[in-house]
């Protein structure tokens, strides 16, 4: 059947290839910076590849690249989207990625005995807040009557899981397990959704040494779904709700498939979220490179927290190689607002924090919070002495690298000296949680026992 159709198809493809392989606009980028500024540091490895997951809180990486902060340090960085958090962890450990946007819990778990073990370090905390819990339309319609309403007839926030409790009982009575999604066993989202559920007396299930599913005695079955697939999984009916970072809560609002009920800002104000992670080996072999990377990321964080830059940041993030969601979706949470039910858009200036409140500084206390959570839910199966928490975190969180980078930035005039926190590497700010209990990293036990 060597028909003419073949030839037509062939010709069409040939034309297409010719059309796109042709002349390129030379003038377009002629004006780009012709000379590369000399960095004060001697960079051991200028060509780097970093990974990220499609979430708005990867913004410091995209900004540092697009605004030329990496190149200012003499770094040539490619950033690659990864498919899921497990893949990110493996590729950093195996050296295919030089560093990556990661869940705070991942480097900590890798050093504390849960999941794959490796020596990873965190010199930079990428952001505060930025997550939400979304439920499907069906669950929301059953939940809504239980939510107290304000004078304007709109639900009072923060919505507690108490409103969800009767819905879960309904599902249970009809023989259906109530399933929700989170992004990774050691992710902030897992702990946040557990915290939110547990505060209303709903048991989210325990981990043990033998059972790493975390579903023992569970009233809500939590399972792992990669962040960008959350809306599709919710739409398919596999899960009834999820806890995930932006823009995947707003995506559910825009697609009309779910309703965000709370944000992690309401669960724990200014909680640490993602971190930037490299292997200990990389940092030891390339100390100057590690500092240079941290410098570029701190500058990106600072740039991001100037409100007038946010619209530009949204534009950059909506490019297909970064987060790729539509601008309107990204803007909804990036520009100081958050939309709950369709039409119920509320002001939330601190929903994404990239620099304020020392957001970029890797506080030991933040790391210890994750360790207490791993202990609380049984991911660390046996009790540990108080000193263990501090010792473990000191190997992973590296404020010393952050300090060196920040001091250089102060010397170069990029940030004011007052932006370097005077601290014993414990975050002194009091923490606020949805159920009114507070957490102090110096006495992690009191918190676990509560």
């Amino acid at each position: 059947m060597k028909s003419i159709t073949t030839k037509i198809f062939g010709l069409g493809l040939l034309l297409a290839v010719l059309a796109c392989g042709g002349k390129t606009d030379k003038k377009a980028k002629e004006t780009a910076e012709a000379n590369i500024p000399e960095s004060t540091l001697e960079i051991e490895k200028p060509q780097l590849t970093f990974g990220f997951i499609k979430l708005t809180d990867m913004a410091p990486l995209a900004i540092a690249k697009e605004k030329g902060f990496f190149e200012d340090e003499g770094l040539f960085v490619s950033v690659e989207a990864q498919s899921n958090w497990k893949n990110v962890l493996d590729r950093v450990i195996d050296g295919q990625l030089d560093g990556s946007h990661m869940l705070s819990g991942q480097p900590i778990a890798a050093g504390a005995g849960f999941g794959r073990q490796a020596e990873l370090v965190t010199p930079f905390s990428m952001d505060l807040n930025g997550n939400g819990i979304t439920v499907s339309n069906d669950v929301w319609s059953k939940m809504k009557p239980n939510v107290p309403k304000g004078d304007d007839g709109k639900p009072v926030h923060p919505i507690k899981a108490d409103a969800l409790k009767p819905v879960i009982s309904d599902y249970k009575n009809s023989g259906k397990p109530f399933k929700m999604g989170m992004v990774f066993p050691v992710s902030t989202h897992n702990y946040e959704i557990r915290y939110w559920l547990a505060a209303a007396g709903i048991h989210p299930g325990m981990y043990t040494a033998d059972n790493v599913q975390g579903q023992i005695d569970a009233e809500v079955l939590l399972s792992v779904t990669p962040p960008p697939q959350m809306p599709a999984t919710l739409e398919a009916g596999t899960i009834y709700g999820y806890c995930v970072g932006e823009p995947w809560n707003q995506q559910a609002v825009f697609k009309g498939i779910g309703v965000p009920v709370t944000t992690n800002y309401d669960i724990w104000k200014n909680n640490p979220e993602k971190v930037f992670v490299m292997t200990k080996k990389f940092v030891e072999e390339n100390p100057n490179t590690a500092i240079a990377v941290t410098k570029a990321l701190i500058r990106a964080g600072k740039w991001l927290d100037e409100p007038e830059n946010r619209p530009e940041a949204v534009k950059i993030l909506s490019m297909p190689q970064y987060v790729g969601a539509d601008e309107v979706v990204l803007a909804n949470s990036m520009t100081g607002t958050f939309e709950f039910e369709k039409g119920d858009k509320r002001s939330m200036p601190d929903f994404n924090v990239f620099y304020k409140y020392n957001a970029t500084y890797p506080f030991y206390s933040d790391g210890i919070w994750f360790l207490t959570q791993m202990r609380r839910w049984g991911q660390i199966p046996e009790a540990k002495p108080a000193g263990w928490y501090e010792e473990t975190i000191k190997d992973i969180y590296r404020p010393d690298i952050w300090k060196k980078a920040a001091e250089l930035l102060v010397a170069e005039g990029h940030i004011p000296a007052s932006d370097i926190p005077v601290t014993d590497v414990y975050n002194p700010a009091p923490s606020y949680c949805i159920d009114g209990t507070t957490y102090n990293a110096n006495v992690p036990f009191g918190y676990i026992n509560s």
Partner: protein
Amino acid sequence: MKQSVTVNKTQELKLAGAAKAALSKFKVKSPKFDLKTFLRKVIVPLASILLFIGLWHIGAKALFNIEADYKIQKALTDQGQAAANAMAACIASGDISCQPNTLPSPAQVWESFNTLIADHKVISADKLAFKEKTAALNEKRISEGKDPITYTGRPSFVDQNFTSLNTVFAGFLLAFFIAVPIGIIIGLSDTLRNAFNWLIQVFKPVSPVVWLLLVFMIVKTMTKDSNSDSAFIISFISVGLCAMWATLVNTAMGVSSVDKDYINVAKVLKLGPLQKVFKVILPSSLPLIFTGLRITLSVAWMVLIAIELLAQSPGLGSFVWEEFQNGANDSNSKIIVAMFIIGIIGFLLDRIMLTIQNMVSFNKNATA
């Protein structure tokens, strides 16, 4: 009745004559041009393409309306009439913030195709600028014996096509060099064929995903010390392993079913074992081997998408997956563009193999 027939006929003739004249002008070899073949080979396929696009357009429109109605209805029940009207107006205005997310129409897909091409031009320009920018630095680095800095941006859709083709050819060659020799050896001996039959039967139906994981386990350990990206190695080996079975089975079958007379001739001529393989067995089993290779190539192209997606190796597979993850307004139409490109490239690859097969085999009438 009769008249009209004759009129038709004369018209037909005129048309044919005109077409013939036009064709001869362009020196196209067309010994016997007749309308029927023209109809059958050009008009009918073109009409079917138009019909397909038409049906697609209507289907997409219907799905769009279902989604839009649902959205308006939902706004009505949740927020009242005003919100429903606003939603209807918003959908009609084509604003991105409220567009129903469903099967894209042919026009949208065409638009996305153009976007991707434009995007490719932007990236090519960017690449050139980057090259100029780093030229001095790279010279210095090379003189110091270090690796030059390479482009740090993302690959364009067109680049990804070539990466994918590259992976498929590497995988195909691997399959060729593994499957054909083993197939010949197995085909020559009944004992060996029986010995290895279970292995072929067990591994043949294994899913590409599992092959990928298996290759990943092995390659990861083998490349422990090197810092290079093993994603390409992993994906092309997986593609090769997935796709080689058809060639292996067909080669073994072709070799074992060579006409007894030929073998006897070889015996009479007292050919050595190597000569026997190259002069007698291989030529007569070529049609079957090529059928196997064609299947291998199309399987390779098919599994490639799944493998690239999982191995995070740049290419069409990861393009499709990234667009699915992006979930932007134009993501669906970009996925459809990729679908067509994948299909067309697969089709062309098959034609190329068929041409090669016709060139080398005795049987000049091999058909699809």
